[in-house]
């Protein structure tokens, strides 16, 4: 390194290792040195064969009214059919798509809100099935034991340990609050029943 640090003078110091040394040390060093050997140079390049034999693809049947961005001219010819809109979360999502473009924060924030509503709709519905949601098995938290949870975290220089404690609160907190709410509701009903008696 020069006496005067690099940016204050015109010259650029040579790399610490010569090309020959790098070639000897690192398999394949420099084989893509020529940009022409780089498949995404330039990023936008017409004429790459794709296998498409159509100008516009045949349309996939729309078996239910498929929500779409209002920035699209029409429903795209092909689309995913996983998990159609349903329930309150579906209504929120439908509104977000119909009312706001992707340019609007409201569009995305409504979709995020709908995701939280969706999760609770399904949690509650699962309680009435033979397979209710199980926060222990579904979070995979038992792998803390098989995956060396303590050794992996402590005594390491890890930045994420400072916030990982929030995760159980995010996952378990609403369940605890819902449980407390249910207990309070049952107590309230009992009190009311006693009052009548």
């Amino acid at each position, binding site marked *: 390194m020069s006496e005067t640090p690099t940016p204050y003078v015109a010259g650029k110091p040579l790399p610490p290792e010569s090309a020959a040394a790098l070639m000897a040390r690192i398999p394949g060093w420099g084989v*893509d040195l020529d940009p022409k050997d780089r498949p995404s140079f330039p990023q936008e390049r017409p004429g790459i064969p794709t296998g498409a034999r159509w100008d516009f693809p045949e349309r996939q049947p729309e078996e239910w009214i498929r929500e779409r961005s209002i920035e699209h001219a029409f429903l795209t010819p092909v689309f995913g059919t996983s998990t159609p809109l349903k329930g309150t979360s579906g209504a929120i999502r439908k509104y977000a798509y119909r009312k706001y473009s992707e340019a609007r924060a409201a569009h995305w924030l409504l979709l995020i809100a709908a995701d939280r509503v969706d999760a609770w709709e399904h949690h509650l519905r699962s309680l009435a099935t033979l397979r209710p949601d*199980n926060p222990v098995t579904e979070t995979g938290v038992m792998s803390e034991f098989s995956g060396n949870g303590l050794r992996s975290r402590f005594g390491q220089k890890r930045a994420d340990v400072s916030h990982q404690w929030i995760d159980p609160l995010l996952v378990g907190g609403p369940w605890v609050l819902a449980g407390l709410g249910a207990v309070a509701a049952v107590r309230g009903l009992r009190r009311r029943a006693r009052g009548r008696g």
Partner: protein
Amino acid sequence: MRAMVYRGPYKIRVEEKDIPKIEHPNDAIVRVTTGAICGSDLHLYHGMMPDTRVGTTFGHEFVGVVHQVGPSVQDLIPGDRVMVPFNVYCGSCYFCSRGLFSNCHNVNPNATAVGAIYGYSHTCGGYDGGQAEFVRVPFADVGPARIPDWLDEEDAVLLTDALPTGYFGAQLGDIVEGDTVVVFGAGPVGLFAAKSAWLMGAGRVIVIDHLEYRLEKARSFAHAETYNFVEYDDIVVHLKKATDYLGADVVIDAVGAEADGNFLQHVTAAKLKLQGGSPVALNWAIDSVRKGGTVSVVGAYGPIFSAVKFGDAVNKGLTLRMNQCPVKRQWPRLLEHIRNGYLKPSDVVTHRIPLEHIAEGYHIFSAKLDDCIKPLIVSTTA
């Protein structure tokens, strides 16, 4: 069939679902033999990606065997072993015809600002993914390709996203001989980006992370100089000192939306979902690259705004280059590099998890337990 199913943030389980059906004449149904969990799947798992619906099956890194094809499919037949790029794309729209396969306009009705990706929320098209026994693959004559006989299954699955994305990230940096390249993130994509930077003639490659076992991998696998940002009061100042106060010529953000290093940024983005991503690595990239340098972004960010230090990027005259990787464009050259022994993608695989134990796999990967770098989902029925 058995499939991984999202049940809400941090919660997934395996459920019985119908085998997907042909919905378009150019569809194929692929029986998945090996899949993977991607670092970007964790953004879905943590509930950060808008319109991630309960019941969705994740998974955009998978290989398998063609089970069924639609009537217009000409290039594949049942029984073919195929690798499938994470991009769903038509091959004929304005963008595909210019090589921008990851920006296809014909496959994602939910958004124009992103193409379509398997198992990556309705924001990315609403397709179920490959962490299942079967998956629907649209445009079977466009995206998938037969796996060469000489290629290992585990190398092939890493060609569906992680390796091409890292290689693409290095290309976006426009590296010239002798450049100093800094890579933020020593996950699979960062490791592949670092390795690729050498192929493009970098003179020095530096990798930054906070997980020591991943930095060790960056040294042994990617021949990189490494720094743990936790050890430095200010990693940007350290990088300036390490480059004689010039800054790096090229910086690659291979971290994306859940970057650590700033508690407030991380919590507002990853926990409270008030940002599209925690732009800590991106801001460090902007500040540690030299004036006139290039920042390449291949880390995944959500569509909501993020607190990016854009003024510094303007005032330093930076070139910012970014995209989702158009995977299939990378394959011919990457296959040459694998065959020549320059790259061995499966060297980053640390865990092989049966589909039935995928909830544990997500937790291990998410919490960075057990020195996890890349978990694969292995089929128990194939």
